[in-house]
C-alpha cells in the first residue's frame, strides 16, 4: 500500500499547491484522483514519483518511508510513472524505450503486445524514433506503454492518460487498465477527469484547492460528482430532463 501522510508542497518561492494531503492507495485497486484544473493533482503524482520534493509530510510504500528516495530509487522500488506530457528523444526508438522500461530485451511479440494495449500497430512503430515525427497522441500512447512494460512496478501512476488519445485507442486503454487490475494485481493511480476512467475506478479521491475534498469508493463518490457536475453545467435550473429544477 502507498500512503501519503500530511503532504504539503509549494512552488519554489511561490504559491502553495498542496496543503496537508493524506491518502491511501490500496494494493491491487484502481484509484482515480480527480478535481478541477490547478487543484494539485499532477503535483501529487510528481511527488509520489520523486520528481518533486514535498515541503512537509511523508510517503510510505508498504510501510517503508520512501520520502527521501530519489527518482531512480523509487522507480527501482516499484513506482511507475507516465508523464502527462510525453518526453521525446532524438535517437531512441520505441523498442529502445520499452526495453529500458522492462529492463530486459523484449521479443517482437512482447513489444507487439505492449503496443497493442495502447492501440498501436507494432509493425509500424517498433523501430520508429520517439521524436517529433510522432503525433501527440502517438507519443502519449507510447508513454503509457513504457509504464505498462514495468513488470517490476507495484504502483503504476498515469497522469491524464486520456489527453490527446482518440476514442478507439482510449477504449484499448480502458481495457488495458482493467486487465492490469484483474490480472497483474498492481495498484494503479490515475489522474483523470474522464468519466469512463472514473467508472472503472475502485476508489475516487477528489482534490480541490490543494486539499482532499472527498475520498471513498466509486459507488459513494461518483454519483455525488456527477450531480455536482450537472449543477455546474446548469446552475440556473434549466437543464431540462434530468437537470436541476
Amino acid at each position: 500500500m502507498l500512503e501519503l501522510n500530511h503532504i504539503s508542497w509549494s512552488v519554489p518561492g511561490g504559491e502553495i499547491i498542496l496543503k496537508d494531503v493524506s491518502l491511501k492507495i490500496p494494493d491491487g485497486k484502481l484509484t482515480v484522483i480527480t478535481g478541477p484544473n490547478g487543484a494539485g493533482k499532477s503535483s501529487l503524482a510528481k511527488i509520489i514519483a520523486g520528481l518533486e520534493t514535498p515541503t512537509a509530510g511523508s510517503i510510505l510504500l508498504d510501510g517503508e518511508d520512501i520520502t527521501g528516495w530519489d527518482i531512480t530509487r523509487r522507480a527501482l522500488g516499484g513506482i511507475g510513472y507516465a508523464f502527462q506530457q510525453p518526453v521525446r528523444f532524438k535517437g531512441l526508438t520505441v523498442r529502445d524505450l520499452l526495453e529500458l522500461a522492462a529492463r530486459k530485451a523484449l521479443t517482437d511479440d512482447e513489444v507487439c503486445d505492449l503496443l497493442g494495449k495502447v492501440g498501436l500497430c507494432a509493425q509500424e512503430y517498433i523501430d520508429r524514433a520517439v521524436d517529433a515525427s510522432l503525433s501527440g497522441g502517438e507519443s502519449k500512447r507510447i508513454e503509457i506503454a513504457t509504464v505498462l512494460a514495468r513488470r517490476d512496478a507495484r504502483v503504476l501512476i498515469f497522469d491524464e492518460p486520456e489527453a490527446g488519445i482518440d476514442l478507439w485507442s482510449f477504449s484499448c486503454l480502458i481495457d488495458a487498465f482493467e486487465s492490469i487490475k484483474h490480472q497483474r494485481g498492481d495498484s494503479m493511480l490515475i489522474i483523470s477527469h474522464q468519466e469512463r476512467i472514473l467508472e472503472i475506478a475502485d476508489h475516487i479521491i477528489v482534490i480541490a484547492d490543494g486539499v482532499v475534498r472527498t475520498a471513498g469508493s466509486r459507488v459513494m463518490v461518483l454519483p455525488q460528482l456527477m450531480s455536482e457536475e450537472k449543477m455546474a453545467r446548469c446552475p440556473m435550473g434549466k437543464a431540462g430532463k434530468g437537470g436541476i429544477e
Partner: protein
Amino acid sequence: MNSITEQLLGVVADWSGGVSFKGAYNIRENGQCAGRQSSPNISIENKPDAPGLVIRIKAAAQGETVYIPACVTKGGVDDLVYNDFFIEPGADVIVVAGCGVHTDDEGEARHNGVHRFFVGAGAHVVYKEKHIGTGGGAGKKRIDPITDIELDEGAVLEMDTLQIGGVDSTTRKTRAKVGARAKLIIHERLMTDGDEQAVSDFAVEMNGDDSAVDLVSRSVAKGRSWQDYHSVIRGNCRCTGHSECDAILVDGGRVNAAPELYAGHIDAALIHEAAIGKIAGEQIIKLRTLGLTEEEAEQRIIQGFLEA
C-alpha cells in the same frame, strides 16, 4: 600484423581475428602493407606515383565488401596515404575504411588518408569510416581524413563516418560533386572528450539536374573538447539539399556550427536544420523514472543520439 593492429581492426573494421577478411582487402599498419588480397571483381594495386592504393571495382561486383583499414600502433609515425577508388557503372559495393591510431609513448601517432571516389553511372557505394584513438602515451593521436567524391549520373554514395573517441585532434574534409540524378548521403557522428578537437568541413557541389544530398552530422562534445563544423551545399542546378547539424554539449564542451547554403538555380531546394544544446533535463528524468541512474540515462541518451 601486431596485436594492437588486431585490436584496432576489431573496432574499426569488424575484424574478428584469426583469419583474414573475406573478399578483397588491404591492411595498412604503420605505413606498410600488412596484408592484401584482390577478388575477381575488385583489384587492389599500389599507386604508382604516391603511397597508397588504386582500387578498381568492376560492374560485376554486386553486394561485395572491400576492406581498406589503416592502423598506426606507435608514436613517431606520421602516415600519409592516397587511395583512389574507381567504381564501374552499375557496381554495388561496401567500402570499409576504418582507422585506428595508438600510442603508448611520447611520440605523435597520426594517420592522414586521402580517399578519392570516382563513382560510375548508376553505381551504389556504401562507404563506412570508423575512427578511434587508443593508448595511454602522452603523444597526440591525430586522424585527418580527406574524402573527395565524384558521382556520375544516377550514382549513389552513402557515407557513414564515425569517430568513437580518443582522437586528440582531427580535421575531416569531405568534398563532393554530384551529377544528374545522383544522390549523396552523409551521416557523420562525432564524439570528443577531454581536450580533444575536431573540425568537420563539408563542401558539396550539386551539378546535375535532380541531384540530391542529405548531410546529417550528430556530435557530442564532452569535457573541455571543441568542435568546429562547416558545411557548404551549392545548388547549381535543379536539385534538393538537406543538411542537419545536431550537437549535444556535456560539461564544458563547445561547438561552433557554420552551415552554408548557396542556391544558384531557381529550382534548387535547400534546407538546413541545426540544434546545439545540453541534454534536456526531462529526458534524463524520464529515463530515471524507468530505473536508470542519472549517469546511465545520460550515457543512454548520448548512445542513442549518435547511433540514430
